[in-house]
Structure formats: C-alpha cells, structure tokens
C-alpha cells in the first residue's frame, strides 16, 4: 500500500485581489505519476506555485511527505524533496550550463541512485556540448533540457514538470516521455502538466482536470480514455 506523498485539500490562492484557485484538491501517492490537465488559464501553474510556496495559498492544507507545508518558505518545501521544472524554463541566464547544473546539485544522501552531471549529459548530450555556454545563449529547446536536468540534479522525491515538453523537437519530446516512463519505472513520483493527452494517458496513472481553479474530474487513464466527452468538455479535444 503506497503512502501519500502529496496531498492538497481545499486550496485557495489569489494574485493580489483576483482569486485563481477556489478550493482545489489533489493527491499524489508515492511512486505514482499524476497528470494535471485543464485549458489555458485554469490554474495549473498556480497550483504548482502554491505547492512550492511561491505564491502562498490563502486557505486549505498542503501536505508533503507527511508535513504541513502551506506557509513554509519555498526553499524549505523544495528541500523536503520537490524538484520543479517551471513554466517558461527559468534557467539562470548568467550561469553556464555546467554551473546551472552544479548550482542545483544536492540531496545526494537521500537518494539511492543519485543523479550526476554525467547522467544528465547522457540523457541530453546537447547539454554536454554546450557546457561552457552562458544559459542566456541557449536555444529555447536547449534551455528546456537544462531546466529538466537541473530539476533532476536535486534528486527529488517528487518531480514536477510544468509544460516541460513545450518547444522541444518531436524526437526529443519522445525521449522525454521515454525518460519519464523510465523514471516512473524506478519508482519516481511525478506530477506533470502537459497538453499532450495521448502521451499522458499512455504513461500517467491518474489524472486531474481542473476548471476555473477547481478539480472537476479525477480518474485513471482508462477512465479518461473511456470518456471522450470529458476530454471534449474540459480540454477542448
């Protein structure tokens, strides 16, 4: 019986005066891969920001690895073992590729088979080639690879990917999906946001669909595929 790694309940989050999340709930079990879906602007990224403590939630509970993390500063949450590939990459432009990876390295002791620069290079050979380039000079896709590599370098218990395949070439995109299933095979818990429903339903265990800041549906991949109407209604497919 898998333990609950992340549990969110009734979270409400605002940007200034405008409320974006209205009592959102979701759960990620240990070793599970969960997808978060919804149309543009429905609050997916905001959910992630609330989990990470980047935009503090106003109400509700967020528990990670058994600890209440709402209103903790974001570095403490990250230290508990969350690795984030943020929307829009957000690599450090004034550091080299190599330094971007080194800066993120940590949490070695907790992981059984920790990520190293060599392993990242094996995953994305392009990053090895560009090792001494400043982050700012990378192409869009290269930046995306770097962002993923950087998140892995923290050896997270839970990996969160917010549109991590955006802007990647099809071949690389395939590789990332393969990599995710490989990670899942190793028991890595993943929370993923992506627009490619086909791929998601292939490898994710469960899905949440959110609409205007609320969870409107949750179920397994089979259930999702079985209900094309649902996809049409909430995802516009």
């Amino acid at each position, binding site marked *: 019986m898998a333990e609950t790694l992340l549990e969110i309940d009734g979270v409400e989050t605002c940007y200034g005066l405008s409320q974006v999340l209205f009592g959102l709930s979701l759960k990620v079990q240990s070793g599970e891969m969960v997808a978060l879906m919804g149309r543009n602007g429905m609050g997916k990224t905001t959910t992630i920001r609330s989990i*990470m*403590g*980047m935009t503090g939630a106003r109400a509700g509970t967020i528990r990670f690895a058994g600890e209440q993390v709402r209103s903790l*500063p*974001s*570095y*403490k949450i*990250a*230290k508990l073992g*969350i690795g*984030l590939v*943020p929307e829009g990459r*957000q690599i*450090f*432009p*004034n*550091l080299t590729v190599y*330094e*971007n990876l*080194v*800066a*993120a*390295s*940590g*949490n070695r002791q907790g992981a059984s088979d920790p990520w190293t620069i060599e392993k990242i290079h094996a995953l994305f050979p392009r990053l090895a080639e560009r090792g001494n380039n*400043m982050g*700012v000079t990378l192409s869009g896709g290269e930046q995306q690879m770097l962002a993923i590599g*950087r998140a892995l370098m*923290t050896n997270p218990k839970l990996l969160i990917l917010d549109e991590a395949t955006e802007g990647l070439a099809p071949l690389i995109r395939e590789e990332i999906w393969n990599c995710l299933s490989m990670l899942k095979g190793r028991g890595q818990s993943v929370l993923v946001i992506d627009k490619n429903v086909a791929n998601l339903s292939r490898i994710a265990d469960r899905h949440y669909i959110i609409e205007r800041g609320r969870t409107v549906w949750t179920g397994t991949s089979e259930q999702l595929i079985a209900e094309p109407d649902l996809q049409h209604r909430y995802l516009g497919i």
Partner: protein
Amino acid sequence: MLVLVEQSLNGLQFGLLLFLLAAGLTLVFGIMDFVNLAHGSLYMMGAYFAATFVAWTNSFVLGILMALGATLLLGIALEFIALRHLYGRDHLDQVLATFGLILFFNDAVRLIWGPAGLSLPLPSWLTVPVQIVPGVFYPAYRLSIIVVALAVAAMLYLVVMRTRIGMLIRAGASNREMIGALGINIKLLFTLVFGLGAALAGLAGLMQAPILTVQIGMGENILILAFVIIVIGGIGSIRGAFLAAIFVGMIDTLGRAFLPDLLRTVLSSAAASTAAPALSSMLIYLLMAIVLVVRPEGLFPAAKR
C-alpha cells in the same frame, strides 16, 4: 625613472584601496542587484569602529579585527531589519532608502562620536619607510594595503567564480524565486553576502583611516569613485572592478603627477597650472564616459565574464 616607479606605486596603492571599497559594492550591487548608497556609510562605520576599538584595546591589530567583526554584524543587522525587503524592488527605491540611511548614519555618528572626527594612529612598526628598489622608499603601511587588497581580490574571485556558493549567489541575482525552488535559503545567503559586502566596506574604511581621516561623510566622495570603478569594470565583475580600480588609481595619480608638466610643454606655465587640475578632476569622469560610450556595459560585462 625612480619618480615614475614611485608614482606608479602610489597609483597602484590608491587603486587597490579603491578596489577594497568597490569590491563590496560590486558584490552587493552586481550580484544581488541592490544599489547600496549606504556602502559609504559602512565604510565610515568601519573607520569609526577601528579608531574606537584601537583606542580601547590599545592594540592596532586587535582593534582592527574587532572593527571588522562589528561592521559585519552591522551589515547583517541592517540587511535583516530593513534592506532585505528591498531586493527585487526598483533601483530607485533602493537609492532612496539607502540615501535615507546615509543621512541617518551621518547624524548618528555625530551624536555618538561628536562632529569633530577621530584619528587612528599607526603602530610604529607600520610607519617606517621600506626600501623596495634601491633609492625608492615606500611607506610600510601603504605596502601593507597593497598586500591586503591583493589577497582580498584573490579570495573573492575564487569564492564567487569557482565555488558552488558563488554560483548560487550569482544565480540568485538573476532569479530569486527559482533558487528558492531548488531548496536554497536565498534570504540567508543574501544576508551573508550583504554582511560580507559590509565587512569589505568596513575593511576599506579602516585601512584608509590612518592615511586619510575618520570623519563624518568620509564615505560619500569616495563612494562615487567606487561607483565609477564598478561601472567601468562592468557591474558584478570582481575582475572588472579589480582592473578598473587599478586603472582609475593609476590614471588619477599619474594624471596629477605628469599632466601639469605635459601641459606646460604646450601651454604657458600659468595656463597649465590652472588647466591641469581642472582637467585631472575630469579625467576619471571622462574616462568613464568614454568607456561607456564605447562599451555600454563596461569593460567586463558580467554576463559574458
């Protein structure tokens, strides 16, 4: 020739002194993107602390170490109480707030130590002139400034460019939120960096104190010079600040030393002696303007290193 050697040493020493001040400034400004006008006040506090502690303990070295610690603590306290809330804000907000701190520190010092200033006498072992090449004697204390500044420069360069802490600091400058998401306590890191910057300012102040004076407002004119240096060098670049500081020190000293004679070859003596100081006062600003017109991001733009 010997004159040239001696004047070059003067220039080098003055430049390195400026580097001590500029290093802290470029660290805080370039790396944390925080414009700290009160850096000059910390420099002043370093000098006041040193003069006070040296008098108390009757030991130059002990007093100076205590002063260094005191400015470090002061910097940390300042950052903790007020300045950390200003990271990521508009530069102007920072200018305004730290301008307020200048006002405050000047008057606080006046209240505590009185308006008259203090003096920091050198121990006798530092006052003897040292013969460096035959025929050229150089004050021992000025030599010691050269040594300390070079050591600080090397240490800073290594820490910022070669260690993970340095990478984190630089990364935090460009994206605070993301560095937090990597599990690093950026607030603490920045507090320490600010403290380090303050200690460097204090070090500059207390090293200068025996040569110059311990006076209210002593940090203000020299702060402008320090800004000029970090801008010429490229903001955030320790190497840039180092080279620019030596450059400015040399230009300033050699300009004053040789410009009048140079001008006298083309102008009448009277005209030269009035034109030369006017020109040499502008020299540094002229230099900065030229550098910026040719290289708008300074000599060593930080992003490209």
